[in-house]
């Protein structure tokens, strides 16, 4: 079982430019761990203090938001395409 993982430009700085990787992770938490092993620097940046994926990072599996598929409990299928996309919001704190 292997999935194709696509990483956005914002991640590439921490992956020496790699934008696609294969993974055998069974689910999202395992994939986050796997990416952290493959790219230690990325692993540090993509996780919150509690070790989970930062809330601003959206994850899509074959065009579908993983939250519609069960989130962390979704079991990846062979040849799934998994994309990480940071949420693009406009900031607004008073400087």
């Amino acid at each position: 079982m292997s999935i194709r993982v696509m990483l956005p430009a914002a991640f590439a700085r921490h992956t020496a430019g790699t934008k696609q990787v294969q993974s055998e992770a069974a689910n999202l938490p395992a994939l986050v761990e796997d990416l952290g092993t493959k790219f230690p620097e990325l692993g540090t940046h993509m996780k919150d203090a509690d070790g989970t994926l930062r809330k601003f990072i959206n994850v899509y599996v074959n065009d579908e938001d993983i939250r519609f598929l069960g989130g962390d409990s979704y079991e990846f299928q062979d040849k799934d395409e998994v994309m990480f996309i940071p949420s693009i919001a406009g900031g607004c704190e008073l400087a």
Partner: protein
Amino acid sequence: MASASSACTPYELYSKESGKSYGNQPLSICDESFTPLEVRYDLQAARPLFTRKNIEAGPLNMWRYRSLLPIPEGFEPDLPVGLTPLVRAKNLGKRVGSQSLYVKNDAVCFPTLSFKDRVVAVALANARAFGFETVGCSSTGNLANSVAAQSARLGLKACILVPADLEPAKILNTLVYGARLVRIDGNYDHVNRLCSLIADQYHWGFVNVNLRPYYAEGSKSVGFEIAEQLGWRLPDNVVVPMAGGSLIRKIKKAFDELIYLGLVENKHVRFFGAQATGCSPIAQAVKNNTETITPQRPNTIARSLAIGNPADGPFASRMIRETGGWAEDVSDVEVVSGIQELAETEGIFTETAGGVTTAVTARLLSQGRIKADETTVLCITGNGLKTTDCISNRFELGRAVRPRLTDFEEYLNELDGAVQEPELALAEGD
């Protein structure tokens, strides 16, 4: 040398999360924390520039506030965008139980009849400064219209991506400007995700992707205008439609800046968000007292608000609760009633999003969350001519009447269901 009203306050992109500064570039995500970038101003430098006097001496459009908008030095905006009417809504107020209700009417914003003209104007000023030849956006319609029109004016190429099921008027209002329109077989969230990928691959300026921090700042002009049009006062309440959740936050930011710089007295303003029940992830988060947005699959006629995974949702939910406000959502039937109510009472024809805001305002007043004697501003963000399909079946054209007075009188009697004497004034041809 720039005059005081056209001088700019220094600004830059930065990440609140990581503290990293990025200068000014087409970028929306911090590469350390993967959180959204924000525009930060040197507010001390703004003090002598952003004054009531300078603003009042400025042009009669949103550029009167340019010293607190991220406009590149040397860019001279020539489109009179913004400064839309703030109208006292006595009739609607009477109907829904408010003695001090105002409508901020961006249904007549120039040039494409929605508040998106404001954000696009700021985004394209930056697109040009960054040297983009092609600009684009993911859009639920109004943004598409505005990018198409304003890029035509600036001589930029436009490539615009929309959900395939968009209202016909919004598609036509994009194509007419010569823009390239790509209909995507999916909802707005699919379109938006694709745009993120395209922006990674192509050297295009996507107003709501890689130009997003600048773009979003344009919304502040709504807040600046409300305060100035109320006589440099802030209202008690603002009711704002929510799609991505950006506008409501930027109005708050505008009020905070006005207070900070001393242009208005400090006042606690409560913010109320309006959504359609068929796509209400932010309203649900507010009601559940959480910043966690549970995405939804949109199913509503209010397509301009149909963003199931709103990027600014977590911030908007928190901000609304912090101000003591609330968020409500209304059914599609109520949306249509809201459109009609605003038209019949105030002569303002708004699109579905405005129907949402009007219906939510009525509900907030009936719930007692907004009080009758408080000053409340209802933000209308788009024009009803773009979404006529949702109400066209509500009206009958009636039969054609022969051009004779007798026939006209008969017809009036038919409509009234009773025989009446003609009014004297009418008989005299007044």
